Each structure stands twice: as C-alpha cells, then as structure tokens.
C-alpha cells in the first residue's frame, strides 16, 4: 500500500485572451488561410509577427503575407505524444522558415518516422478544416514533393477581424494527500476522527498537518478524537450560491472536538438556525456506513447533544 492516499485529478481552464492588433492580425490571417508576418526595424520578416520591435521597441505596424510553403531549419522526433499535441501519433516538431520570411515558425510536421525528415526539406501548411483564428488553424506541416504547390485554404466563414482567442488548458495529475491527511481520511473511512499532537506546544491538530504551523515541528503522535464537541463560532448562511447543496438558511459552525485544539468547520442540523449558539454541545451524526468514503462528508452533520452549554472559559483560547 502506498504511504499516502492518491487519486487522479484534472485541473482544467479555458483561457480567454484578447489578442491585441499584432497577434490578432496573424490569427485573422490564419482564419483566412494566409500566413502573415511582421517586418522588424532591421528589415526581417518574422512569423508569427512580434508585437514590439526587439531593437526599437516600437509597435509592429508593417505586415507581410508570406507563403504557406517553406523549408525545415530544425526538427525533433516526438516518439510519445502527450495530450493536446497536434497529432496523437508519433510526429515531428519542426522549425519552418516560410518562403518570404526570415525566421522560422514552430509547428508540427506530419510524417510517419524520423527517416522521413531532413533539415532543408520542403514542406507546406496543411490547413485545418474549420478555421477560427487560432494557431491550430494550421493542422500541421506536410512534406512537399517536387512539383507540388501550396494548398489553397477553403474560404473563411467570417470576415470580422480576430480579436480574441480561447485556449483550453487541461492538466492531469495523480494527486497525493500528505501522510497526515491520509491518516485523517483513512480514519474517516473507518468512522474515526484522527488528529495529531505537536510534541513542542502539545496542541492537537485536526485535520493533522505535516508540521505544526506554530513550531515547524512534525506532529507525529496520533490522537483519536471524541465525536462530541463545542460550537465555538458559527454563521447562518442565507445567501444562495452556485453549487450550494443545502437550502438556506442553515448553520455552518466551528466545532471544537473534545481533546482538539483546532476546530473543524461543519454543518449543524437538528436545531432551528436561530437557536444555535456559542458553547452549544454537539455530536457527529454519520451517514450510513455503506455510503462512507475517504471523506469528511462521511459525517453528515453535527447535532445538539442536549447537554448543558460549555462554559466560555473552556473554549475561549480556541476562537
């Protein structure tokens, strides 16, 4: 068994960016089936165009249409493509200097083996079927046999200049809890609430952390906590929000479990919201065992025990 609990996690976000006039001009060109470069103060044609001149720092204003045919100036083989790359089979990345440009453009080259690529070979743009004003409007480059010409892109479906671009970013991780978090979640999966005690300040942390944030010392001693505790502070939630699971009004409270020095945030049920108070004694109410997982949600909520309220002095250090 791994020391830690682990699970796959995907973090994804669609980045929506405005292009500005220079990158916008380049992407508009791709949408229209034309590769556009920018001329620098030194007279070089650069593809994609630079927003600002590298020497004078002036904004690029002179644009040049270049050919969609060019020459490979460097390449590398991609034996194991990763998600999102232009091809899901082995391919080459290449630097291609298009005819009419002075510096190369980075893109993919669709060939079946490294034996089919050489520096200096002639290649042409393969246009994507649906072009929207994005670097992927170029599906990739393909070898150009002698006598073959560039491919004219089918007409674009829009005439408006491209001013924005959406790039989807999605990252897959094998996410690991810390050993201490793993202890906590494994405990919950068995119906127990586990904490750890700092050997320096003797405070009991729940959930346990890898080090006591006060002292920086590892909290190694495991402590099983009581299932009853005291409400130290609370909030009545009246505002609806996206993803809300419970109908307002309801009470979120800090529950200081007996024996712990850090309160846990949880839901209070079994009592009208306006009767919840600081010092109220509550106990954990668990979901049916067959619904348990490695989750704090195994505890459905906390409910009043009916015992007399705790004295303020017993929890005033924990507010």
């Amino acid at each position, binding site marked *: 068994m791994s020391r830690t609990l682990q699970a796959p996690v995907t973090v994804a976000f669609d980045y929506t960016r405005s292009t500005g006039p220079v990158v916008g001009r380049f992407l508009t060109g791709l949408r229209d089936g034309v590769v556009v470069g920018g001329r620098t103060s030194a007279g070089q044609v650069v593809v994609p165009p630079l927003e600002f001149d590298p020497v004078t720092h002036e904004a690029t204003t002179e644009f040049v249409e270049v050919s969609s045919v060019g020459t490979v100036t460097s390449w*590398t083989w991609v034996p194991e493509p990763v998600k*999102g790359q232009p091809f899901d089979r082995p391919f080459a990345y290449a*630097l291609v200097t298009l005819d009419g440009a002075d510096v190369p453009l980075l893109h993919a080259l669709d060939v079946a083996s*490294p034996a089919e690529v050489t520096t200096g070979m002639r290649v042409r743009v393969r246009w994507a079927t649906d072009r929207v004003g994005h670097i992927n409007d170029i599906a990739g480059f393909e070898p150009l046999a002698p006598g073959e010409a560039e491919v004219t892109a089918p007409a674009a479906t829009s005439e408006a200049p491209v001013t924005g671009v959406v790039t989807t970013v999605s990252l897959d991780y094998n*996410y*690991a809890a810390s050993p201490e*978090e793993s202890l906590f979640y494994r405990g919950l999966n068995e119906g127990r609430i586990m904490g750890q005690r700092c050997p320096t300040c003797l405070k009991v942390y729940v959930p346990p952390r*890898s*080090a006591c944030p006060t002292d920086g010392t590892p909290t190694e001693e495991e402590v099983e906590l009581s299932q009853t505790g005291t409400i130290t502070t609370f909030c009545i939630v009246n505002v609806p929000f996206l993803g809300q699971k419970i109908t307002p009004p309801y009470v979120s409270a800090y529950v200081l479990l007996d024996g712990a020095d850090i309160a846990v945030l949880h839901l209070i049920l079994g009592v009208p919201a306006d009767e919840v108070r600081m010092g109220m004694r509550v106990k954990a109410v668990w979901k049916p065992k067959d619904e348990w997982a490695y989750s704090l949600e195994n505890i459905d909520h906390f409910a009043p025990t009916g015992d007399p309220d705790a004295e303020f002095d017993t929890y005033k250090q924990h507010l």
Partner: protein
Amino acid sequence: MRDVAVVGFAQRQMPEFDGSPTCVELLVPVFKELYEQTGWTRRDVGFWCSGSSDYLAGRSFSFVQAVDAIGVIPPVNESHVEMDLAWAMYEAWIKIQTGEVDTALVYAFGKSSAGVLRRTLALQLDPYTMTPLWPDTVSLAGLQARAGIDAGVWDERAMAEVANRSLTDAEKNEYAIRKGGSSVDELLARPMYADPLRKHDCSPVTDGVAALVLAAGDKAREVRERPAWLTGISHYVDPMGMGVRDLTRSPSAQRAGAALDLGGVEVAELHAPFSHQELILRKELGLGDDVLINPSGGALASNPMFSGGGIRVGEAATRIWSGQADKTLAHATSGPALQQNLVCTLSGSIEGKNN
C-alpha cells in the same frame, strides 16, 4: 555592497516522492539539517524566500501550505518566486543588501512526478502561438540540439561525452537518481528517443527540495570557517520565441557571465538539463578545459524542478567550505532551451570581488 556568503545547503532528491505536493514532509528535515549546520534556530533567520509552482503538482497555494515547515507564529519575513531556488537566492541577496536583514534561508520544492512534467512546462510558453501546440520540453531541447548538430557547433559524440562524464561523477553523489557511466561508444549505441536526443541526453524527471542559507559579514564567519562568499551574481533573459534567437547560442548566459570576473574559476556547476546545453554554456561562459565541470553529476543525474539550479549553487559552495577550491561558479537556467540564465561566483576570500 555588503559581503554575503552561502553558509548552508541541504537537499533531497528522488524519482517519485510518495507525499504531498507541498513537500512539507521533506522541508522539515531539510530545515533541521540547516539549523544543525548553522547552529541557528528559525528565529535567527531574517528572511525566507521559496521557489515553487502550483502547476507542477496541481495543488493551489502550495507555497502557503509549505510555510508550515517553518513555523510562523510569530510571523516571519517571507516571500515567494515562481522560479528556481537560484532566483529565490537572488531576491534574498538583494534583501540582505538593503540592510533590512543579515540572514536568509531560501528553499524550493517540487513534485514533478504528479503530472507529465514535459507537458506541464508548455504553460510557460507564449500562450497564443506556442502553448496550444503543447510543445514539450524534450521536443524544444531536441530542436535546439539539432540546430547545433546541423551547424557543426557540436555533435552527438560531444553530447555523449557530457552524459558519460556526468553519470560517472554522479556515482559519488548520494542524491543523484540516475548514475553509472559506461563509455561514449556504448552511450552512442543506445537507441534514439526524441531524435536527436537519447534518454541520457535528457535530465530525469525528479522530485525534491533544496535549501540554501545566506549570511552577511560576521554572521557568515560565525557559521563557517570558510564561508562561500558570493563575489558576483548576475542574470539575463533571451526572447521566448524559438524562431527569433540563435538556438546554438545563449546570449543571456554569455551576458550574465560577462558581468562577472570569471578568472580563476576552478569548478563550475552548470544547470544544463540537456547534454548539449552544457556545451553551449561552457562556450558562452568561456570555461576552458582546466575548469572542473559538474563534479556533482549535474542536472543529467537529477533535476528537481525549482531546486535544480539552486542545487548547483549549493554544490559549488560546498567545495569552497571544504577548501577543495578557492573560486567556483554556479549557473541556473529557466524557460525553454536556456532562455533565462543566472550566473554567480563563490570564493573562499573576498579579495578582488566583483559585485
């Protein structure tokens, strides 16, 4: 300028860390080691700075979690860079120069194995024309390696010589995760991976943490008989685009080196995650055959993201402390294909320093 020295160094490196993305479990023992090296407690550290990125392992605000390893009640003077440890050290060096603090502990952590490192690093590229193509780190380095081979600046044999020397030297480094040289011919007989790169031309995916301690003047002398004085530190950056720079060169590394006095350097620890990049760096920094390169094994033996550059500083400092060398050089890189470079010199004395 105040005289500032590296007086502490600790590291942990491994292929796959079975622990949290915050690496607190690794940082706690590393800090403990540094308290033992310096005789300090955390209260003696005037400034803390860390280097990390949440993209690496997919945990938000991991650097905020990581301060648990310090213990921050009462609060500490702390900062963070989304850069290598060497740049965290640069920030700390400036902080000490301001006179606000006399000491600093800088650290970095990263769990590269949680994701697909070479893919994750596409997020540091131009978001309009590069990231959507997901050009992975190995491919970008491959384009650079080919450019140098085609131009006749280096060849596969020279690359294999770098790998063979690195893997041989790594046998003496307990932290190296890939080690064991053989011969240049044997390495050249191995299959291509990302043509023109073989696997031994590429640094292994490495998890780990590292930390350095800096101290000014007498504070440094109290810790070490022979502090490794930072006699020069400089960093520059090149354009990101692969098309607009000569890939066979690293002008930013050249410029960083030219800002310092590199005469008399005996040992150079170069942060070259790909074999051909060491060849570029040696040339740009003008390091002759009399300079011992990467006796630690360098980044081809292990290269934890965010620590790999700072570890070069630590290795170079260690050789000053021990008296093995009087003057050493450390280099750190960041970005695709040696885009950004930091160079510093470390010396056993502060005569003739060049700040």
